[in-house]
C-alpha cells in the first residue's frame, strides 16, 4: 500500500510530462499531415494531426516553385564553413585563456566576453557598411564572416579546457612538445564533447539565422533556407498552404539528423560544470 502511495507523485509527474510533450510535438504532426493534404484542402476543418491523405505532389511543387535543393545546399555550405572556422578560432582562443598565463589575460577575456552582450541589431547596420566596403554584400561571405567569432563559444571552450588535468600537458612538455602541438594533439581531441556542443549551437544559429540573410541576400539562387521559406510562403500562401508546409517539413530534416547525432555528446558534456567567470 505504502509503496503505491509513494509512487503517486512520480506517476503524476510522468503523466504531466507526457501530456506536455504531446503538446510540444503536436504542431509538427499538424505540419507533416497538412503538408500531405491537397493544396485546396489545406485549411479544411477539422485540422488533421495524423496524415489522412498522401499527396506527395506538394513536395514536388516546392522544387518546381523554387530552387529548393540549391537553397538547402547554400544553408548547409554556409553553416559548415562557419562551424569549421568558428571551432578553430574558439578552441585556439579558449586554449590560450584556459592554459596560458599571460599579460593582459583578464582584460582581453573581459573584452571578448563583453561581445556576448551586443545584440545582433546593434551590429547590423555597421556590419552592413563594413561588408559593403569589402564588396561582400549579396554574397555568402557576408553571412559567414561575422559568424566566425562567437564569444560564447570561446567561453564554453575555456571552461571545459580548464577542467583537463595539468598532468597531460606536463608529460608532453617533458617530451619537448611545443604549445601548438599540445593544443593540437592533446587538448583538441580531449575537448571533443564541448566541440560537438559548440558546433551544434553554431550550426543551428547559422542554419536558423533570418535577419542577416534578409538584409544581405537578394538573389534566389543564393538564398538560405529560412528566407526561402518566407518567400515560398508569400508565393504560395494565397491558396496552397500545404505546399509551404511541405517546404517546412523538408527544412526540419537536417536539424533532426544533427540532433540525433549530437545529443549524446551534448548531454554528456560537462561544459556547464562551473560557469565561473
Amino acid at each position: 500500500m505504502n509503496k503505491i502511495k509513494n509512487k503517486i507523485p512520480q506517476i503524476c509527474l510522468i503523466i504531466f510530462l507526457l501530456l506536455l510533450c504531446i503538446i510540444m510535438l503536436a504542431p509538427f504532426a499538424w505540419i507533416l499531415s497538412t503538408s500531405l493534404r491537397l493544396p485546396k484542402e489545406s485549411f479544411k476543418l477539422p485540422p488533421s494531426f495524423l496524415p489522412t491523405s498522401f499527396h506527395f505532389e506538394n513536395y514536388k511543387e516546392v522544387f518546381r516553385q523554387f530552387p529548393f535543393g540549391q537553397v538547402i545546399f547554400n544553408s548547409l555550405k554556409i553553416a559548415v564553413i562557419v562551424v569549421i572556422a568558428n571551432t578553430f578560432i574558439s578552441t585556439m582562443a579558449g586554449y590560450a585563456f584556459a592554459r596560458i598565463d599571460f599579460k593582459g589575460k583578464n582584460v582581453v577575456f573581459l573584452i571578448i566576453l563583453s561581445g556576448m552582450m551586443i545584440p545582433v541589431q546593434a551590429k547590423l547596420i555597421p556590419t552592413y557598411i563594413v561588408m559593403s566596403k569589402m564588396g561582400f554584400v549579396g554574397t555568402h561571405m557576408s553571412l559567414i564572416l561575422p559568424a566566425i567569432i562567437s564569444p560564447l563559444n570561446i567561453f564554453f571552450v575555456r571552461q571545459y579546457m580548464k577542467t583537463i588535468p595539468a598532468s597531460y600537458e606536463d608529460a608532453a612538455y617533458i617530451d619537448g612538445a611545443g604549445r601548438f602541438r599540445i593544443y593540437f594533439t592533446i587538448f583538441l581531441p580531449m575537448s571533443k564533447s564541448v566541440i560537438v556542443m559548440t558546433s551544434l549551437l553554431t550550426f543551428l544559429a547559422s542554419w536558423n539565422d533570418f535577419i542577416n540573410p534578409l538584409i544581405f541576400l537578394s538573389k534566389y539562387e543564393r538564398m538560405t533556407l529560412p528566407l526561402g521559406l518566407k518567400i515560398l510562403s508569400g508565393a504560395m500562401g494565397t491558396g496552397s498552404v500545404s505546399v509551404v508546409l511541405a517546404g517546412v517539413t523538408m527544412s526540419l530534416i537536417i536539424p533532426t539528423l544533427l540532433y540525433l547525432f549530437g545529443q549524446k555528446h551534448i548531454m554528456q558534456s560537462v561544459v556547464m560544470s562551473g560557469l565561473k567567470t
Partner: protein
Amino acid sequence: MKTVTKTAGNYAAKKKRKDTISAYIFLAPALISFGLFIGLPVILSAVLSFFKYNLVNPPQFVGLENIKKMFTDKGLFTAFGNTFKFLLILCPIHCGLGMILAFMVYRAKRFQFFFRSAIYFPSIVTTASVAIAWGYLFSTDMGAINYFVRLLGGTNIPWLTDRVVVYVTIALFSFWKFIGTTFLYYFIGMQNIPDVYYEAAQIDGAGIIQTFRHITLPLLSPTIFFVIITNIVSVFQIFDEPYLLTNGGPGTATRTIALEIYQTAFQDMNIGYGGTISFVLFLIILVITIIQFKGQNKWVVYDYE
C-alpha cells in the same frame, strides 16, 4: 616593468614573456575577427550617430540631431516599452519555467530520453519555418487552434489580432520554440550536481520542494546567472517572432527595438539614426549586465566542491 635581478625571477619573466607571445598568437584569429566584426561595428554605430546617411549618397555630419530626435520620437518610446514588456513576460518564462521543467524531467524515472528530446526539439528547428506554420495555426477563423476552442464551446480567440492577446500568443510561441535551450542548460547543470548532496538530503528526510530549495537552487545558481544574462540579451534582440508572426502589429503593439532599428535603417534608409538607436540599445544592455555582475555576489554560489 620592474627590474628583475634574481636568475630564477629572470627565468620566470622570460617564460612569461614567451607565454605572452604564444598566447597572443593563439588569440590572433579571435582578436582580429572580434575587432572586425564586433568591435568595429560597435564603434562605427557610435560614429554613425552623428551623421545623416542613406547608404547611397555620402554621409552628412549633423551633430547631435539624431540624439535630439530620440527624445521626441514617439515610435521609439513605444518600441522600448514593448521590448520591456517582452522582457517582463519572456524572461520569467525561460528562466523560471525552464528550470522547473528541467527539475521535473530530472526527477522523472521513466521516458527521460523522450521528454528531453521532445522539449528540446522545437528549439533546433528553423524559427522562420515554424513561425509560418504557427501563423496558420493561430488564424482567427480558419486556424486549427480556434477550431478546438469552438469545439469546446468557446468563441474565436483573436490570437494575433488583439494587442493584449498577441503577447500571450508570442509568449506561447516563445515557450514552445525556445524553452528547450534554457531547459538544456539547467538539465546539464542539474546532472552535474553530485549525488551525495541528494543522498544526504534524503537521509535528513527532506521533501522534494525542500531539496529543490536548499540543494538544487543554490548549487544551480551559476547556471541560473548565466541563463538570465544570456536571456536578457536575447530578449532585447527579439526580432524573428514579431516580424514573422505579426510584423510588429497589430498597429504598433509588438514593434520591438529590433524591428524599429530594422525599419529605421533599412526601410526608411536612415542609417545614421538607426545607428544611434543601436548604440543606445548596446549601452542599455551593457549597464544591465554590469548591474547583474555586481549583484551576483549576493546570490551566486560558485565554490561548492
